[in-house]
C-alpha cells in the first residue's frame, strides 16, 4: 500500500476521478449555463445524491474486503418499511410534536438495529458458513426484500407525522440535512478506514486474505463488523429515501444497486479488494450527480442515462484495470517467493 501512496499522484484513480468530476461539471455548465449553475439546481442536487451515495459507501467497505454486497437495497427497503410500519402503527399525523419526534427517534433506532442485524446475518453467512459474498448477499437480499413485500403486501406505506420529512427535505444552517448526513458518514468512514487498526485490517485482508490470516487477524470478526457497518449504512440510506419519498415500499431504489457498485468502482475501489479511498467515492458520486442532473436538463431520457452509466463503468474499468493487475501481481509475489 505504501508504494501506492508514494507513486505519482497524477496516476491515482482518485486524480482521474477528480478530472472526470470537474470535466462533467464544466461540460454541463457550458451546455446549459443558466439552468445547471442555478442555485436551485445546485440545492436540488444536494438533496438528491446522498441517498445513493450512502449506499455506495456501504458497497465500498464491503468491496475493500474483496466481497460485494448485493443486499444493500434490500436492507434499506426492509428497514425503511419496518420504520414506516412503526410510525403508522404508533404515531399519527395529528400527534403532538414531542410525541411524534419521540416515535420518529424510536423508528430510526429500530431501523438502525435492524440494519445491523441484517448486516450481521450477511457477516455470519460469509465468515462462518464460508458462502461467497455474491451468493450470501444475493440470497439475503432476496430474503430482506421478501420480508418487506410480505410486511406490506407490495404496496407503499404512508401517512407519517410531519417530522419524518425533516431528515430528507429540510436544511440546517442552509445546508440540506441529507447532505450533512452524507458528509458525516463519509468523513467517519474515511477516518475508520485510514486511521484505525480496523481499517488497516480490512485493507490487509482485501489485499491478501492469506497473508492477513497469517498475520493473526481475526478474519471472521473483522468480516462480520464490515457487513454490520454496511447494513447500518444501508439502513440510514433507507431512512433518507423514506423521508424524501414520504413513504416506504419494498421496491424503492431498485436501480440504486447497480449505481452503488458503479460509483464504488468509478471511485477507484478495487473490486478484488485491498484498495479504495473514500475521497474517490465522493468524487464519483459528484460526477454521477452532475451527469444525471445535466442530462436531465438536456431532456435526455432515463434509459439513455442508464446507457451512459453503463458505458462509463466499462470505460473506467478498462482504464483502471491495468493498475489493478499490477497491484494484484505485487501482492501475490511475496508469498510465492517465500
Amino acid at each position, binding site marked *: 500500500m505504501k508504494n501506492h501512496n508514494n507513486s505519482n499522484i497524477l496516476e491515482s484513480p482518485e486524480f482521474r476521478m477528480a478530472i472526470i468530476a470537474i470535466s462533467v461539471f464544466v461540460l454541463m455548465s457550458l451546455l446549459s449555463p443558466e439552468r445547471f449553475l442555478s442555485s436551485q439546481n445546485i440545492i436540488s442536487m444536494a438533496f438528491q445524491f446522498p441517498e445513493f451515495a450512502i449506499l455506495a459507501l456501504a458497497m465500498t467497505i464491503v468491496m475493500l474486503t474483496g466481497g460485494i454486497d448485493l443486499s444493500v437495497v434490500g436492507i434499506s427497503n426492509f428497514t425503511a418499511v419496518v420504520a414506516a410500519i412503526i410510525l403508522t402503527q404508533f404515531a399519527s399525523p395529528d400527534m403532538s410534536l414531542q410525541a411524534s419526534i419521540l416515535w420518529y427517534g424510536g423508528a430510526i433506532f429500530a431501523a438502525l438495529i435492524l440494519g445491523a442485524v441484517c448486516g450481521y446475518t450477511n457477516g455470519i453467512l460469509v465468515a462462518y458458513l464460508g458462502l461467497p459474498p*455474491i451468493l450470501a448477499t444475493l440470497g439475503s437480499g432476496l430474503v430482506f426484500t421478501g420480508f418487506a*413485500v410480505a410486511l406490506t403486501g407490495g404496496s407503499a406505506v404512508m401517512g407519517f407525522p410531519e417530522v419524518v420529512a425533516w431528515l430528507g427535505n429540510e436544511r440546517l444552517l442552509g445546508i440540506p440535512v441529507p447532505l450533512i448526513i452524507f458528509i458525516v458518514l463519509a468523513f467517519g468512514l474515511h477516518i475508520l478506514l485510514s486511521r484505525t487498526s480496523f481499517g488497516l485490517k480490512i485493507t490487509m485482508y482485501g489485499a491478501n486474505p492469506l497473508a492477513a490470516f497469517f498475520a493473526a487477524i481475526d478474519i471472521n470478526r473483522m468480516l462480520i463488523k464490515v457487513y454490520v457497518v454496511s447494513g447500518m449504512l444501508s439502513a440510514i440510506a433507507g431512512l433518507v429515501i423514506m423521508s424524501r419519498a414520504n413513504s416506504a415500499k419494498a421496491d424503492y431504489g431498485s436501480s440504486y444497486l447497480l449505481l452503488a457498485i458503479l460509483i464504488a468502482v468509478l471511485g477507484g475501489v478495487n473490486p478484488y479488494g485491498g484498495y479504495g479511498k473514500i475521497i474517490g467515492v465522493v468524487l464519483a458520486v459528484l460526477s454521477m450527480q452532475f451527469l444525471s442532473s445535466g442530462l436531465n436538463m438536456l431532456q435526455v431520457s432515463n434509459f439513455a442515462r442508464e446507457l451512459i452509466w453503463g458505458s462509463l463503468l466499462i470505460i473506467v*474499468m478498462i482504464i483502471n484495470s491495468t493498475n489493478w493487475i499490477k497491484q494484484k501481481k505485487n501482492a501475490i509475489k511475496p508469498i510465492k517467493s517465500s
Partner: protein
Amino acid sequence: MKNWFPKGFFSRNETLVAVVIIGFCIIATISDPLFFSVTTLSDLLRASIVMGILAVAVMLVLVSGGIDVSFTAIAVFAMYSSTLIALSIWPEMPWYIIFAISISIGAALGAINGILIAGFGLPTLIVTLGTLSIFRGFLLTFIGSERISALPPEMREFSRMMIARGTTESGNFYSLPWAFAALILVIALTWFILQKTMLGRAIFAIGGSHESARRIGINVKATQFFIYVYVGMLAGLAGIIFGSMGRMADPFSLVGWELSVIAAVVLGGARLIGGYGTLTGTLLGVALIVLVQNSLIVIGIPSTWQSVTIGVLILVGTGLPAYQAKRAAAKSA
C-alpha cells in the same frame, strides 16, 4: 444399499433439490389433489422453457468461473430488435429466420461481453452489470420502448405448434408447445459440448484454475470468448421464444429475471468459484424455482412470501455445501 448410489449421492445439491421438489409436490397434492395432474405438469413445463434455456447458459458461465447478469438484457434486446426487423422488412418472414436473426443478435451482444472479459481481463460481474444497463439503455433509447402486440404472423404460428394437447378426464385443458423441443435441443447441445468435446473440458479447466488451464496449453481467452458468445446465442433464443409464447414483444420484460435464473443454477449445485456444475442440477434448480413461482400458494404459503422462499432456498442450498467444504478444509489443515 448405499452402493447403489454414486459416491457422495446424499450430500449432493441435486439430491437435496430433488428431495425438496418431491416434498413440495407431496404436500401440494395433499392440500389440493388437483395439483397432481397433467395440466399442472404441462403448465410447469411450459413455464420452465425460457428459464431453462437461460439457466443452461448461466450454468456454463458459472462452470467457467465467471458470472453473467446481462443475459436478460441480451434476450430482450435480441427479441425486440429481431421482431422489429421482421416487421419492417418482411412481415411474412418464416419463424426460423426470425429465430436465426435473434440468435445472431444475441451472439453479437455476447461477443461484446466476450471481448471485455477475455480481451481486457475485466471482472465478469462488473462487466456484465455494465453491459446489462448498456444493452437495456440502448434498446429503450434508440430501438424502441413501445410494446408490440402485432407480432409477425409466423411467430404467433410458432407458439401454436403443439407437441401434445388435449383435455383430461376432469375436463382440464393441457398443452405442450414445440418450443419445449428447443429446451431439449439446448440441453443436448450443451451436454455434448461439455462432455464430449475438448472445448467442454477447457471450460471446466479454466473454471478450476485459470493459471493451470493456461499452463496445460488451453487457450483461456478463446474459451472465455466462446462461452460469452454461446450465452448470448442462448439468450437470443430464449428471448424470441419468450416473445412468441407471450405473443408480445415487450422491451421492459425479462430484465429482472437474472437473479431468479442465477438462483436456480446455484441451487442446482453449480459453484460460483467455477469448475463444477451439472445440467441435471441446473434443470432441477429451474424446476424448483418454477414450482415456487407458480405453486407456492398451493402449499399454503402466500405468494408475497415468494422472494423470501427463494432467498432462503439459495442460502440453505448453497450454505450447506459451503459449510461442509469449509469444515472439510479445516479438518485437513
